[in-house]
């Protein structure tokens, strides 16, 4: 309480100074980075509630005061969708959260999601002058947390986007992840008749089957889906495009004038090592789908989907998905969880905050190590993994130093469950059933700068185009594709009226 009063006083003092035009950069540097309240590690590993609890109002405004208001605003260049970061941060400092939210929403439709899951430290915050001054990205203005704060606190019921008069044009949106949500919103705004086709029984794509509740509450995603429904977007779940209907059938038989494909990353990669089909070996996709979408953590007390009752778990990989799976395993009741990653910690693609959280929760990292084989018992159930140690060699095509295995460095870890989280490859369902659509050699859809594919009226975005990437990139492409679809349909309507 006392601390809060102090903070309020400090904020008032800084604001007064700013108003008088007397607040110097040096004084801004002196404001300490605000620590976002979070659930204590010992407590949170026993529940699935969100770990990070969000800034208080005072914290958010103080954090926003740390922004130097750089003329060239380098942060904006770091943002994949070029949110006017500087302006929304200024509005936040001033306490005008509604204004801040509106600024974000000019470029990003899902701030509550992106504020939580964007890898800010490699995007906007990497470019932040404050971070550079301290030579520590961790000291940058916490743009992501501010985005989250604004989204959580300024969103109101009336923020359903307006829909233009009906155009008579039909748009099919395939998949319901972040790219599709944006594409559906933007095409619906233009007055088109939009239908989302989702393979699962629930909407939200990776945000509901992949990213766990403790990092992104499902209620946030549901709110976005509810908004789509309020806008009049139609939703057909349990519909697998490429199986239930092909894209050509949707266009030729069902009369869809344009299609957006946002089906996501698809098939889990395995390591192609001995023992990978033993009982107790999961892809992260399966493990997370069981826990998140199917609520396996409630098995026996409501939910019907089981999951391994693991004691010791090894998760292979170093991305967000690997950390999500590792932390989900703890919450389901594993006693010990190891993370096995073949490069060093600095090279882990996961968000820094998630790495910190995982460490706090007691996940043991085996870095510069990778499994050679998985060992089973007489029941063909996992009993251990044998790993090799690695060292870093010359940089590879990704710019990261290539890990090289050290001969004779084998060591074993006793585990009963192995979760493989080394990425995904494109799902072939659409490729196999859409001969006119061009794919690259990895099975990703080829698009131009407007997200247009090789088929007329068909657009694509997100992981099925980029390979495994981020929510924000998928969203950005959803927006580009929607703009292109709206243009395309405008032309189509004009031609129709002429004839």
């Amino acid at each position, binding site marked *: 309480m006392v601390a809060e009063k102090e903070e309020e006083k400090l904020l008032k003092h800084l604001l007064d100074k700013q108003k008088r035009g007397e607040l110097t950069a040096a004084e801004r540097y002196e404001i300490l980075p605000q620590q976002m309240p979070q659930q204590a590690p010992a407590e949170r590993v026993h529940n699935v509630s969100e770990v990070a609890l969000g800034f208080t109002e005072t914290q958010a405004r103080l954090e926003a005061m740390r922004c130097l208001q750089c003329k060239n605003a380098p942060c904006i260049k770091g943002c994949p969708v070029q949110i006017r970061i500087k302006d929304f941060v200024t509005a936040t400092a001033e306490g005008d959260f509604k204004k801040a939210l509106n600024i974000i929403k000019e470029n990003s439709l899902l701030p509550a999601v992106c504020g939580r899951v964007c890898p800010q430290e490699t995007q906007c915050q990497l470019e932040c002058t404050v971070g550079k001054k301290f030579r520590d990205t961790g000291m940058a203005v916490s743009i992501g947390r501010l985005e989250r704060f604004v989204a959580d606190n300024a969103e109101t019921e009336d923020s359903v986007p307006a829909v233009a008069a009906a155009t008579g044009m039909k748009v099919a949106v395939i998949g319901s992840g972040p790219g599709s949500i944006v594409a559906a919103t933007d095409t619906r705004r233009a007055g088109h008749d939009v239908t989302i086709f989702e393979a699962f029984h629930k909407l939200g794509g990776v945000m509901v089957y992949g990213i766990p509740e403790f990092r992104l509450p499902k209620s946030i995603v549901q709110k976005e889906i509810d908004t789509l429904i309020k806008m009049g977007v139609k939703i057909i779940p349990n*519909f697998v495009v490429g199986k239930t209907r092909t894209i050509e059938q949707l266009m030729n038989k069902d009369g869809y004038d344009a299609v957006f494909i946002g089906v996501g990353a698809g*098939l889990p990669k*395995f390591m192609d090592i001995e023992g990978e*089909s*033993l009982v*107790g070996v999961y892809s992260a996709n399966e493990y997370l789908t069981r826990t998140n979408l199917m609520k396996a953590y409630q098995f026996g007390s409501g939910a*019907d*989907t*089981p999951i391994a009752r693991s004691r010791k778990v090894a998760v292979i990989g170093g991305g967000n998905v690997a950390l999500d799976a590792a932390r989900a395993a703890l919450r389901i009741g594993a006693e010990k969880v190891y993370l096995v990653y073949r490069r060093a910690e600095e090279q882990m693609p996961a968000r820094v905050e998630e790495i910190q959280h995982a460490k706090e929760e007691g996940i043991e990292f085996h870095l510069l190590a990778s499994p050679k084989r998985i060992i089973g018992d007489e029941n063909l159930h996992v009993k251990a993994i044998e790993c090799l140690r690695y060292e870093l060699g010359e940089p590879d095509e990704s710019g990261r130093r290539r890990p090289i295995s050290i001969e004779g460095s084998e060591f074993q870890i006793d585990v009963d469950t192995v979760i493989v989280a080394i990425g995904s490859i494109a799902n072939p369902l659409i490729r196999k059933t859409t001969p006119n659509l061009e794919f690259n050699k990895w099975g990703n859809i080829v698009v131009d700068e407007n997200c247009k594919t090789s088929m007329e009226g068909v657009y694509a975005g997100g992981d099925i185009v980029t390979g495994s990437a981020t929510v924000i990139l998928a969203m950005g492409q959803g927006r580009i594709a929607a703009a292109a679809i709206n243009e395309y349909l405008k032309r189509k309507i004009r031609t129709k009226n002429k004839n």
Partner: protein
Amino acid sequence: MSHKIISKKQLSENVFTAEIGARFVAEAARPGQFVIISVNAEFGERIPLTIAAFDRQKGTISLIWQRVGKTTAQLADMKVGDELAAVTGPLGNPAHIEKFGTVVCVGGGIGNAPLLPITRELKKAGNTIITILGARSKDLLILEDEFAKISDELIVTTDDGSYGRKALVTEPLKQVCQRAPKPDQAFAIGPAVMMKFCCEVTKEFNVPTQVSLNTIMVDGTGMCGGCRIEYDGKPKFVCVDGPEFDGHKVNFDLMIKRLNAYKNQEEKAYEHYKKHGCKIGLDKKDTDKEIKK
């Protein structure tokens, strides 16, 4: 999309069939494909069931299932007019049908259900059909009449000798393989252990054998990999690479272990369901209906 139960019948003690509204699935379905169903949108489990028949005009599909756990028991407890929470499909690849010559079709237990539409298509394609159906006892034998109509020869076996020959299906299968000329192709669908032994027999006689696998699945579209088997030493996904495979290349021992991965948990859930009746886990709407009755 409505997935109402149009009609429902009990075929044996634990085997049921129902005709279910699923217009989109019916329009696209082909023999050998399956659907993923769920009886409860919020908490239900997703299970794969083979499409036993489909009627494009009516927009319905028929499913046949065995009551082995909670979800299949819930499905068995549903009544005409009740709605399934999800029917997704058709998934998997259609069965590979061509004119082979003489085909021996082996069905075991509930496996007769997925075998029937395939056998029907094989007959249509001009094959001579020898069908071998096996069941533990007479009461558990299903679809005999339907197979009789499309088979040139029909052999029935029961484990206990209560009907047909007292034998396992592998015994007549071996005899059929010993004939000259031997069959050109075999199809075997049933419990994993039955398919395993059928494949051992046909391998000995070099009769190519297709099996249709029903492993544990979540999404059914290739996304989770839970259904994977070891095929010719390499992982394959039953949902997108199958469900039909060359049985001589399938590692059945591993597959059987994977099928039993959740056995204890599943048994507990089923026991609990049996004790506490069919109200648990059903949609609220259904629970209310139950209470009103």
